């Protein structure tokens, strides 16, 4: 037994060491950096909130917070709503929906750099097929600059985000809907419930757990997404689509404002911690059952 214990620690050592070195260590490092005065890449004194003061004094900061709220909250709500509609459709029994269940993960596996380029091309202001189609059908009479218009750009990015993230939400909800007991649906039908009532009062309560879990997980996925907004707009025009992730990247590697960048990184981490805590709270039963195995 004692031998087994040593063997076990030896076996998990590389994984634990890797995570400590490349996730836990850097997290600690960025937290201390955010509390350090940094001048021209040189560290000058620990224990100051200067970086956070500089960050919140940046007029772009509140714009970034507003855009991030649209990105994460708008993205999550739309992702789950569209995902529920598509998932309900995919749950129908038919050969066609069977094929679609296989096909629908394509946006999820395609590299996000490719996704960004594909949509950038479709949304092109002059020769993009989306703008052209809108003009051809008479819905608008002049070209629309989806990515160049500060009013439109954030929501345009959210639409692309939905394309990328919705399929897995749909598939998870589809699996949950398909496992709703048939006898409950049948009983509701016998009692005269129509399709909407069966969905509302039988299906939804049965998938409530999956629905909540997938909502919180979507928030984590969307918070982690960087390449899509960065390649499509780079935060522009004039910061109109600057979100936390792109702001951190720009401040770190284009402006070399490491103090401000680390302060924003810490805010981003605190936000993640609260979402993850929410996730663990919702999932407490499933984690407990895992432990007892």
């Amino acid at each position, binding site marked *: 037994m004692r031998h087994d214990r040593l063997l*076990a620690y030896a076996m998990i050592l590389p994984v634990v060491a*890797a995570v400590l070195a*490349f996730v836990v260590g850097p997290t600690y490092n960025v937290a201390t950096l955010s509390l350090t005065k940094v001048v021209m890449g040189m560290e000058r004194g620990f224990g100051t909130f200067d970086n956070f003061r500089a960050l919140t004094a940046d007029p772009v900061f509140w714009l970034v917070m507003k855009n991030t709220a649209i990105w994460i909250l708008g993205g999550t709500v739309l992702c789950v709503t569209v995902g529920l509609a598509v998932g309900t459709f995919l749950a129908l029994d038919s050969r066609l929906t069977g094929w679609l269940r296989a096909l629908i993960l394509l946006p*999820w596996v395609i590299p996000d750099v490719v996704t960004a380029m594909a949509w950038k091309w479709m949304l092109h202001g002059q020769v993009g097929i989306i703008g052209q189609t809108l003009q051809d059908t008479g819905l608008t009479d002049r070209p629309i600059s989806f990515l160049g218009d500060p009013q439109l750009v954030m929501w345009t990015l959210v639409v692309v985000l939905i394309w990328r993230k919705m399929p897995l939400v749909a598939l998870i909800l589809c699996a949950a809907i398909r496992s709703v007991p048939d006898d409950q649906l049948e009983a509701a039908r016998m009692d005269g419930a129509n399709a909407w009532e069966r969905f509302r009062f039988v299906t939804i309560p049965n998938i409530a757990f999956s629905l909540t879990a997938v909502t919180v997980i979507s928030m984590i996925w969307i918070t982690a997404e*960087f*390449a899509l907004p960065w390649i499509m707009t780079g935060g522009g025009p004039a910061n109109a689509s600057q979100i936390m992730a*792109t702001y951190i990247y720009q401040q770190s590697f284009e402006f070399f404002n490491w103090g401000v960048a680390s302060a924003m990184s810490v805010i981003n981490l605190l936000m993640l911690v609260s979402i*993850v805590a929410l996730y663990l709270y919702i999932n407490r039963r499933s984690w407990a059952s895992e432990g007892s195995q």
Partner: protein
Amino acid sequence: MNEQPRVLYWTMLSLIGLVIAVYILFPVFWLFLASFKTQAELAQLPINFWPQTPTLDAYAALFSDTHQKGQLLDWPRLIGNSFFIAVTSTIIVLIFGTFAGYAFARLQFPGRDLILGGLLISRMFQGAALLLPTYRLMSMIGLQDSLIGLVLLYSAFGLPFATWIIASSLREIPRELEESAMMDGASRLQSMVLVVLPLATPALITAAMWHFVGAWSEFAFASILLESNENKTVTIGLASFVELFTLEFQYVGAAATIVALPIMLVFFFGQRYFTRGLLAGAVKG
């Protein structure tokens, strides 16, 4: 059900299905079509759906050494780098993920569930907040602008999930098989490698595919760490077209096709394993 509602139902089903299929496939397909068009055709209105004079010029340009249009990167080299990083880190993840997965599934030790939970939660923090400290760490240990550095980083990022998926699959394999092998005189390691692992092959394939796709597609960390042109990867190559954005979408289309191709092959040939991994991955973030 009588005939009429059934036909109506079938028509509606097909129609909605078709809309979803077009929505899913169109963006990627449209960029793929652009790779066969000429520059003149791409700039022309009204838009032609199919290429008028299909050409492979864009692909030829990416693979030729006469760098056209400010295109400075050497694509055969980028492809080689991306394969090297993805394949090497997949092998590392499989080896160490198997050991750790076995320990979590089969051995009793204090802190087991807590450590596994901690590893899984660490995945949720692999985002933009780690860009700056990772850059500092890699510069400090001299692995910035190095393919080996990225291999290590991606392995560290990928190991928790691989460990978890392998551990979950090992839990379903009956202990008796191993125990009888050990009664016959096999050591624990021998019984693990010879008896248990062959039964866990599907989980190993799932973990490998999942990791390969993630490593091949990664952009953010590669773009901050790799500086010299001979070290860059395909995702950086594709993203670099943003800087020369005019209407040269035939090159973007060709490059995007090259980046997406290995992923599409993995996706279509490994569909079964892939879906399993995605659903499992989703449940645990």
